[in-house]
């Protein structure tokens, strides 16, 4: 087994654009669930909308700023579509509607009738030009050891992590303010907040939109190093984002970032070790395909252990969860 390569790949995941995208999506989900108590089980849909609403206009020749605005506006509209009928109802209704509509949008982009726009099951590619065109880094290869990338890969990482930092600062500013106090109050008991004269519906909508836009921007970061593939946006994606958020701590600033880093490092390590063991003949009873699936079984087990033994996550406050509220 090539341990150097295995660890190199794993360490590289710490700053990979995918890690940044998942962190961003988890920050958005943290605004929904961690701070406001909204049960959004359709965060994958926001990533999907961000991806397609960015890629389609880009492929049609729109400048990058238009494509980004399109992604943001589409996710705002989607948040309203989800929120208007459900946010007046009990929390569980949003959960059901989000999980269902995430599947609906995935089927919509996969339908062959829309092949001209969405590429159906093949997805979309060839949309990186506008993003690469604004890359200030001269052509070449930079970095050291496992962190050696070309100018485009560095550009994606820099922009991705800058967006993660921006989102974190935004969440920090919001949550230390009276606005944050209202949404945290809603998480605890929305009737109490209502009785104090706050428009609970409006605050829940604002939180849904903010977290959704973060998910949508995460969707853009996610596709910049790859193609748009509808198969990436299953409920599985939503649950990985949940795992990351819970791992780090749902209502914390650094939780989603560190959660995403750990998630991807561990996935990379387990993949490297399992594949290595299979190739070297140490593991004979499974194939590499099965090994890939085993990793995700491990994710499920880890999520269960986490919820049982450290429900507050890595950064969460133990005291907060020691009350049965």
């Amino acid at each position, binding site marked *: 087994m090539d341990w150097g390569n295995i660890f190199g790949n794993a360490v590289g995941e710490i700053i990979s654009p995918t890690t940044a995208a998942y962190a961003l999506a988890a920050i958005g989900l943290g605004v929904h669930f961690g701070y406001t108590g909204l049960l959004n089980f359709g965060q994958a849909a926001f990533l999907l909308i961000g991806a397609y609403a960015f890629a389609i206009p880009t492929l049609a020749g729109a400048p990058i700023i238009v494509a980004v605005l399109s992604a943001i506006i589409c996710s705002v509209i989607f948040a309203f579509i989800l929120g208007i009928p459900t946010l007046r109802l009990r929390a569980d209704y949003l959960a059901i509607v989000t999980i269902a509509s995430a599947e609906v949008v995935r089927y919509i982009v996969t339908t062959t009738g829309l092949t001209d726009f969405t590429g159906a099951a093949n997805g979309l590619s060839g949309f990186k030009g506008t993003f690469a065109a604004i890359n200030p880094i001269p052509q070449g290869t930079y970095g050291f050891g496992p962190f050696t990338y070309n100018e485009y890969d560095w550009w994606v990482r820099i922009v991705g992590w800058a967006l993660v930092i921006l989102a974190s600062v*935004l969440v920090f*500013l*919001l949550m*230390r*303010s*009276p*606005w*944050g*106090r*209202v949404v*945290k*109050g809603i*998480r*605890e*008991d929305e*009737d*109490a*907040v*209502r*009785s*104090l*004269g*706050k*428009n*609970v519906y409006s605050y829940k909508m*604002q939180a849904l939109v903010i977290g959704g836009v973060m998910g949508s921007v995460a969707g853009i970061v996610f596709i910049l190093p790859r193609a748009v593939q509808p198969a990436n946006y299953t409920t599985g994606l939503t649950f990985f984002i949940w795992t990351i958020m819970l791992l780090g701590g749902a209502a914390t600033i650094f939780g989603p970032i560190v959660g995403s880093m750990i998630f991807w490092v561990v996935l990379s390590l387990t993949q490297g070790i399992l594949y290595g063991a299979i190739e070297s003949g140490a593991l004979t009873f499974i194939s590499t395909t099965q090994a890939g699936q085993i990793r995700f079984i491990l994710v499920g087990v880890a999520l269960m252990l986490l919820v049982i033994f450290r429900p507050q996550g890595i950064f969460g406050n133990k*005291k*907060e969860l020691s*009350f049965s*509220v």
Partner: protein
Amino acid sequence: MSNLPSSQTAVPQTHPLVKGEVGPGCAKTDPIVIADSVTRQFGGLKAVDVAHLEIPRGKITALIGPNGAGKTTMFNLLTGFDKPNTGTWEFDGKSLAGVPAFKVARAGMVRTFQLTKSLGRLSVLQNMLLGATGQRGEGLFSSLVKPLWRKQEEENTARADDLLARFKLDAKREDYAASLSGGQRKLLEMARALMSNPELIMLDEPMAGVNPALTQSLLGHIKNLKDDGTSVLFVEHDMHMVMHISDWVIVMAEGRVVAEGPPETVMKDPAVIDAYLGAHHDEDLGDLMEDGPNPVLEAERKAREAHPEIEAEHEAAGYAEPVTPASREEEQR
């Protein structure tokens, strides 16, 4: 039973608070709330069926009645937390029927809940600050710029600290509300409601579970509220308290207002005794009157004797005397 005319006893026919004759649904000289034909049906049960009700301004009004009389439902309806089948009501001259709960609160009619709703994973101070109205920092965009709301936050914090001190919660300022005892949560909820300087504060069983020493000081606070010009409407089962602080008592039973009057006389109203005794209808009311000054308390004592298990439960829960079986009732919403 509730159709017994209240004029059977020697209730005074007039009262300074009342326009015309004293009786269930009587008009007030200066009402802050006027409700008309408010009904709320749960299946076959008419939980509230109030033909006319007026709540005097600037006074402390007690709303009493046995369990299930519809007091909490009436609170929910008036404050927009529940929708009536029929009815209109106005607060301070503004119609509030069909107005959402948060707008009712903004209009100056703030309520607390029978089952306390403290915000567990917020600190006591944060709970209090949430009660303040017109906060600039609660706007999405202004919240991002702290200088816009820092000063207002400081003012609100000073007021919150003042209230917390008055309610003996200042030592708990930084604790999570979830760590408070049941009685302390009641206090916090009331203090939080006061942060908005309401015109009318509606307290649903504010004393349930509050220890007797604190009850005394709370009574003082409620009286102070009146002195500051706030109207108070409260549901309470502790008749000592009702007698002690209220200017006016409204009695509900089976959804209707069955009696009204000043505290000294309303307890002697046969409709009230009837409402409370229910099954003990054949009791000699004369005996009850002689037993003690307060037939309602007597009725409750008898009820407790008939249900010793409830008594034991109270003791186990460390409840302060006097408690009534009613104060342990679960709010059904």
